[in-house]
């Protein structure tokens, strides 16, 4: 981040309160300020990692990864709202990987509660726990947490900077601070004179930061209103820089190939033919694979194809059926978790009608549009890495390990991400680039994976199996008892990150099933962990991505067993449990003109999922067209509490839904001989322009707490579609992808 370095060196800074938010325990460790990452030169005071003002420029740091969710714009708007600057006046940078940029909301999600039922005390406890993100170096963009994380802290940083600037102006003018106003990057004196913030920077840098109260929402001029995204012009002109676009003087291009039997080793390889190809410069032994350095990426990819490699065996059953048999066998052991156990599911009321269903969903790849890549420059005692990444502090740590350096000697530059969806929370592609760079000190090298390498070397959304039992009586659900078996995403992730699995009940594994706001008197959800070594990772909405399908498909089956309209059936159960969940169902009902009846050739389905603090209801309409099923219309209602940028939230909602629908229709990763069988988009397709439904989104702002935006649109998508297909065909979809059992339009 040389640009930050440069700016910081000529910065006369603005002070501001470091970290807002009380810390109730571990105060010394948790509360100790993180070092400022902006590397000021001697004599320059830099207190605040988020606001820098030099004599020429106002710079805001938005240290969250921009992967399309608009975080850089809304994060900057949080600061700007209180600082009184327009977004057009400021430069927004991601900044370096640094402890100071820890996520203060993510750890708060570990509380073993359902979320929607959290008391204000528990919310504060969650906020406090969140600050554990600092000692844990959690600079992470994930869990739909960015706005929860920045909502108070960033406004406070802006407010403090503003008041400190006013104090500098007050001293300069010999008037009281309270007599001054601020607007559009200027302090306004009582006589109407205006002083640019940039002209006050030098004086302000010598002041202690001044804390200030935050303005009420009624006074906001930016938040709650849709802002033009700061990255939009660059993304419409091809000038936005993604990791794959990094170009450095003297840079070489490379590509890599690692054992397709994931986690298996490499016995030997013969690169004679590859080395003889024009444009090939060298072949690097990665231990578990090879890389080719060449004149351009394409030559490197071609050369990899002719390297003869003897791969080791996969550390898991090599075929899909055997893998799912292993998943199913998890039900034979004790459950890892029983996160909800209301009433007594084993004591059925007399006369209740009982039903059972089994569901299965496949492994899934993330398939970001930009294949994995990273650029590295190793110079003996230092390493620089450029990449789109969602967890730059961990990325730095792992690249440092691979280079044999301390983290302090490694600089990570986070570019735009050409899609993240959880995949770029990993570090494997950075480690590979580091290993290649280490063989060529002083020469930068960009390692870009082929689409096939990307698709076959993911950390997959695990395949999962659910066994549900339930009962209805007098038109209501009286019991729901679900078991979910899959690999643990959390354990697999911790194993990669820390070399240990962690213990205890895995909440993420059952999220979206145990914590749904339905008043069912006997309600139990148990999680079973399958012991498999396939790399499993966070895939947009994580556990909710499969549990949303399981639970909301089964809710539909219960509604039909009860002879009820599926929307009204849910509405009644939601209203009795948590009003915001009922409200999104009512809203989507009204948007869709839901009557519970559809003409021949049309099917409608509904689903509601509560995830990441946000309840989302979706209605999907399918139609029969030329003997095929086409997804024609979709309606989405979500309650964010506060929608800081409504137009952007709308995009996240329909985008999240599309991601879920694409997987529901076509997404499937299978294994043969230990290797993933899908290699490219023809084998792993997604919704496209002609298969995309018309969509309407309603963003409510009623519930008390701020909810997430990036993921909650995904979980209800698959079940709403499956329920619509049931309505159309009378055949109940119990496995994904739907293309195996239904003739979908492609």
């Amino acid at each position, binding site marked *: 981040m040389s640009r930050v370095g440069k700016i910081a060196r000529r910065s006369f800074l603005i002070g501001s309160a470091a970290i807002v938010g009380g810390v109730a325990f571990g105060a010394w460790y948790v509360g100790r300020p993180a070092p400022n990452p902006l590397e000021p030169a001697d004599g320059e005071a830099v207190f605040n990692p988020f606001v820098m003002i030099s004599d020429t420029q106002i710079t805001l740091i938005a240290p969250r990864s921009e*992967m*399309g*969710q*608009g975080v850089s714009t809304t994060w900057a708007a949080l600061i700007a709202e209180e600082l009184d600057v327009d977004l057009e006046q400021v430069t927004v940078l991601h900044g370096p990987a640094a402890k100071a940029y820890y996520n203060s909301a993510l750890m708060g999600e570990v509380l073993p509660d359902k979320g929607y039922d959290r008391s204000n005390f528990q919310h504060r406890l969650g906020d406090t726990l969140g600050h554990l993100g600092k000692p844990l170096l959690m600079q992470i963009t994930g869990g739909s947490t960015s706005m929860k994380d920045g909502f108070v802290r960033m406004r406070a940083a802006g407010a403090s900077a503003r008041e400190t600037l006013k104090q500098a102006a007050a001293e300069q003018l010999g008037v009281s601070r309270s007599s001054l106003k601020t607007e559009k990057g200027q302090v306004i004196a009582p006589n109407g004179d205006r002083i640019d913030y940039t002209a006050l920077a030098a004086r302000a840098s010598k002041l202690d930061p001044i804390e200030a109260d935050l303005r009420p929402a009624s006074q906001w001029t930016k938040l709650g209103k*849709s802002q*033009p*995204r700061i*990255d*939009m*012009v*660059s*993304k*419409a*002109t*091809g*000038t*936005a*820089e*993604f990791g*794959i676009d990094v*170009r450095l003087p003297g840079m070489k*291009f490379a590509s890599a190939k690692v054992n397709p039997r994931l986690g298996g080793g490499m016995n030997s390889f013969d690169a004679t033919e590859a080395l003889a190809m*024009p*444009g090939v410069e060298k072949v690097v032994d990665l231990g578990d694979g090879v890389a080719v350095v060449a*004149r*351009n*990426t*394409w*030559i490197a*990819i071609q050369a990899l194809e002719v390297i003869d490699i003897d791969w080791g065996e996969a550390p898991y059953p090599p075929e899909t059926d055997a893998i799912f048999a292993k998943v199913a066998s998890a039900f034979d052991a004790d459950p890892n978790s029983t996160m909800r156990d209301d009433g007594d599911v084993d004591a059925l009321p007399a006369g209740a009608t009982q039903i059972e269903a089994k569901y299965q969903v496949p492994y899934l790849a993330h*398939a*970001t*549009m*930009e*294949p994995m890549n990273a650029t590295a420059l190793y110079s003996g005692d230092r390493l620089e890495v450029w990449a789109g990444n969602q967890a730059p502090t961990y990325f730095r740590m792992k690249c440092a390990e691979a280079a044999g350096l301390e983290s302090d000697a490694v600089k990570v530059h986070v570019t*735009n991400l*050409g*899609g*993240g*969806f959880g995949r770029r929370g990993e570090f494997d592609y950075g480690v590979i680039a580091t290993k290649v760079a280490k063989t060529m000190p002083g020469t930068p090298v960009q390692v870009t994976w*082929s*689409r096939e390498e990307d698709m076959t070397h993911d950390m997959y959304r695990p395949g999962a199996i659910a066994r549900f039992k339930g009962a209805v009586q007098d038109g209501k659900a009286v019991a729901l008892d679900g078991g979910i078996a899959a690999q643990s995403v959390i354990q697999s992730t911790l194993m990669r990150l820390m070399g240990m699995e962690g213990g205890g009940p895995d909440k993420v594994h059952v999220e979206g099933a145990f914590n749904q706001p339905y008043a069912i008197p006997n309600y139990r959800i148990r999680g079973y962990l399958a012991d498999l070594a396939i790399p499993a990772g966070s895939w947009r909405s994580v556990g909710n991505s499969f549990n949303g399908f399981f639970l909301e498909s089964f809710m539909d089956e219960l509604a039909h067993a009860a002879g009820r309209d599926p929307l009204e059936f849910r509405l009644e159960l939601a209203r009795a449990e948590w009003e915001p969940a009922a409200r999104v169902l009512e809203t989507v009902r009204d948007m869709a003109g839901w009557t519970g009846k559809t003409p021949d050739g049309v099917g409608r389905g509904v689903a509601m999922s509560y995830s990441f603090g946000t309840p989302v209801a979706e209605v999907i309409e399918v139609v029969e067209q030329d003997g095929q099923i086409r997804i024609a219309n979709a309606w989405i209602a979500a309650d964010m509490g506060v929608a800081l940028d409504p*137009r*952007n939230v709308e*995009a996240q909602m*329909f*985008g999240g839904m*599309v*991601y879920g629908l*694409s997987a529901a229709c076509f997404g499937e990763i299978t294994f043969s001989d230990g290797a993933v069988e899908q290699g*490219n*988009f*023809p084998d792993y397709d*997604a*919704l*496209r*322009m*002609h298969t*995309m439904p018309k*969509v309407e989104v309603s963003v409510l702002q009623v519930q008390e707490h701020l909810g997430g935006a990036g993921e909650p649109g995904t979980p209800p998508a698959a079940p709403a579609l499956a329920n619509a297909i049931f309505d159309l065909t009378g055949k109940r979809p119990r496995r994904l992808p739907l293309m195996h059992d239904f003739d979908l339009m492609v």
Partner: protein
Amino acid sequence: MPTTLTINGKTHQVDLPDDVPLLWVLRDELNLTGTKFGCGVAACGACTVQIDGEAVRSCQVALSDVDGQVTTIEGVGTPQALAKIQQAWVDHQVAQCGYCQSGQIMQAASLLASNPSPSDADIDEAMQGNLCRCGTYPRIRAAIHSAAQMIQEA
């Protein structure tokens, strides 16, 4: 022997094997990185450029087969001087991650050049080869309709 290419009105000499796809000539030799690599098999449209106004997948056009004037996203407009279609993209706040959008715009511009007022069905037909994993399709559609109108009113 070097190959001569005309890209965005400028002539370039490239000394590379004949079979190197245009995509990689643009990206890795000429540093025109606005054109993106997505799949390498013409299945996603991220690498779409125009040759003599016609949208093509540059990952499938070998250097020796480039016969005509190449236009890339860099040749459509710049941040300081947006083309109408790019203005429509900004007006509708189309992009999310943005990685596919260069290809989407090149494909849409080609559509508008041949069909100044495309119907939804025309858009479905022309745009179905361009994948967007963020799911920005509704706004792409709206932006194409807007761009059509802006171009006609000009």
